[in-house]
């Protein structure tokens, strides 16, 4: 049986940022919305913020594509940039409030893989 330790080809930079979700692969349950009243609020916040983050990323990519195509003028770029910047700041505040980290907003859908 092949060892999984042999599967690392290249590793570079601050790996803790990548390692954390890997460590949690075997730990699916905390990533589900728990019905326990103590944790249900945090679980729902995680779910909602995950969806907001997904939409933010999609919109940002769409905006970048339009920027590349040259279909946005300078004012529009500035306005969009401000909107994304404020949204990112607000997301940081909400994450801090619910004790969530960036990794928590990438729900592990089990066999379907990661959401983002």
């Amino acid at each position, binding site marked *: *049986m*092949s060892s*999984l330790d042999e*599967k*690392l*080809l*290249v*590793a*570079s*930079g*601050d*790996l*803790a*940022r*990548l390692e954390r979700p890997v460590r949690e692969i*075997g730990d699916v349950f905390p990533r589900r919305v728990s019905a326990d009243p103590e944790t249900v609020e945090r679980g729902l916040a995680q779910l909602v913020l995950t969806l907001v983050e997904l939409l933010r990323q999609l919109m*940002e*990519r769409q*905006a*970048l594509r339009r*920027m*590349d195509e040259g279909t946005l003028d*300078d004012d529009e*770029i*500035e*306005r*969009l*940039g*401000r*909107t*994304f*910047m404020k949204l*990112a700041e607000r997301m940081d505040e909400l994450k801090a409030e619910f004790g969530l980290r*960036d990794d928590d907003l990438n729900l592990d859908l089990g*066999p379907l893989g990661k959401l983002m």
Partner: protein
Amino acid sequence: MIHLYAFVLGAEGIEELVRLGRVEAVVGREAVDAVGHGLAVESLVGRCRSVLPVRFGERFPDEAALRRAVEPRLAELERRLDELTGCVEIGVRVAPPEERTAVETGTDYMRAAGRRQADLRDLDRRLQPRARKSADARYLVARTEVAGFAAEVERYAREHPELALVCTGPWAPYTFAAA
């Protein structure tokens, strides 16, 4: 009960095989969990010319039932196994710098986002010529090209010390098993 792990071509030193013409099915008699299934599939990578992983949980009451289920799809399986011959899957994961650089204006924000995206596109552009196929940072690479592929990732990582980057493999070609 027979548990199906993978379809393979050119198996060497594997005990539990059901021969279906040129294609062979690698099976297990004992139930395993998802991780056991994954490890069983991975153990085939170095011992077969071509591996087509089967998703976890495919099982049949006996060998005859397995044959009945597979026989209509045999030509299709052969075609896909031929396509994957000599190839493995390699994954690349990149995390952007964690601390957001302070930006003053919306335009700066968009430019920074654009640079991050351009960096990732650059990595993909450099890896494409070394891969047969790619999908969402997963690459299908000829076994003989793995070292060159890893060297290219290494070069990119050195040019971008601000990124956290991990490149893993060689894996069985899960991403490219379908279609």
